[in-house]
């Protein structure tokens, strides 16, 4: 079959399609719903007892502000990567990763005497479970939304998508978990987030490319 014949065949079989909404619209829709879900989830699971005091702590606010930026910029990257020609450069891709590194530095800068292995282990799996509950619905929603688009680089796209959903869950968990020790936060809050992003990168093709669809 020659190319001209393919052109005629494709034109002959053409059916109207429903255009995908704009990138920003879809991203804001998802981000809004994810924020709403995590806020409700955090309230349902019960906030930390010292929250009223913590929200006046500038360091705590800065850390959470950084997580919020990681969430927003990762989502921005993921949604832009899902549309051909809308991808942004390497600098834009690096920004959420750099912000996450800045967050890690802030957490690691907490009082070193609090970094005891015992403190890190206590109730740690409960944090992972709560984080998974908070991340699940936003992660599923973002994957479904991105599958409708055409990610040409599914590994990066789903990596950023899961980083975004995961960082929002970590943010939610910071309102739930009263343990601020660096070892606990880095191991049990950051650890699962990095694992989710890596899973996203590894399974990107499987998660985002519909069977039979062309990447």
């Amino acid at each position: 079959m020659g190319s001209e014949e393919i052109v005629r065949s494709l034109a002959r079989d053409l059916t109207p399609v429903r255009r995908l909404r704009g990138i920003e619209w879809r991203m804001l829709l998802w981000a809004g719903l994810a924020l709403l879900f995590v806020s409700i989830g955090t309230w349902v699971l019960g906030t930390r007892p010292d929250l009223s005091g913590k929200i006046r702590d500038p360091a705590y606010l800065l850390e959470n502000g950084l997580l919020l930026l990681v969430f927003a910029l990762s989502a921005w990257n993921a949604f832009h990567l899902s549309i051909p020609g809308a991808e942004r450069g390497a600098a834009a891709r690096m920004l959420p990763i750099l912000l996450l590194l800045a967050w890690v530095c802030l957490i690691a800068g907490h009082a070193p005497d609090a970094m005891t292995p015992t403190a890190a282990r206590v109730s740690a799996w409960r944090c992972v479970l709560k984080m998974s509950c908070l991340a699940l619905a936003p992660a599923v929603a973002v994957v479904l939304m991105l599958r409708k688009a055409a990610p040409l680089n599914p590994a990066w796209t789903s990596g950023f998508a899961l980083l975004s959903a995961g960082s929002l869950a970590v943010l939610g968990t910071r309102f739930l978990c009263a343990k601020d020790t660096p070892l606990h936060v880095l191991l049990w809050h950051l650890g699962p987030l990095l694992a989710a992003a890596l899973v996203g990168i590894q399974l990107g093709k499987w998660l985002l490319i519909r069977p039979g669809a062309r990447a």
Partner: protein
Amino acid sequence: MLDRRLSELMRRAQDGDRLAYETLLTEVIALVRGFARKRLRNPDQVEDVAQETLLSIHSHRHTYDPARPFLPWMYAIVRHRLFDFVEKQKRRGENEVPAEIAWEQVPAGETIVERGTTSGFLQQALLLISIKQREIIQMLKLEGLSVAEISRKTGISESSVKVTAHRGYKALRKLIAGAVHGE
């Protein structure tokens, strides 16, 4: 100017205008060939990339936003298809066995003449083409399924089924020619 015209044609195509779509794809294929020719020497490969790109543009046409320029959208797909094609060629190059040698690897160790039947000959040739091509040709020719039925069964678009089958026939012809030549 070109971008605006192509963008308008795609907008109309998204609404189901077949004439606009044919015009658009005709213009697009010329651009794709030009782009691919700079990177590939073999005209057959240029044509393969052009066809793959057409199918990708067709299956992703819903993702084009008429508020954005058309050419960056199109060239992102072209670049991706070209990169994908080159990678596949590299992988194939590492594993590829020339037709004459490939026939020697066909099970049973019999020559074409000894086997003597056309069906046996084709069965062996089918083993040497890609799995996707083999499956589609088997469904089309052995199971007697229609293109539409295969498309439903595999989730691949009808156009893609036709192109894959066509590529399979081409590969079979090449193998048979190679084998006859080797005799």
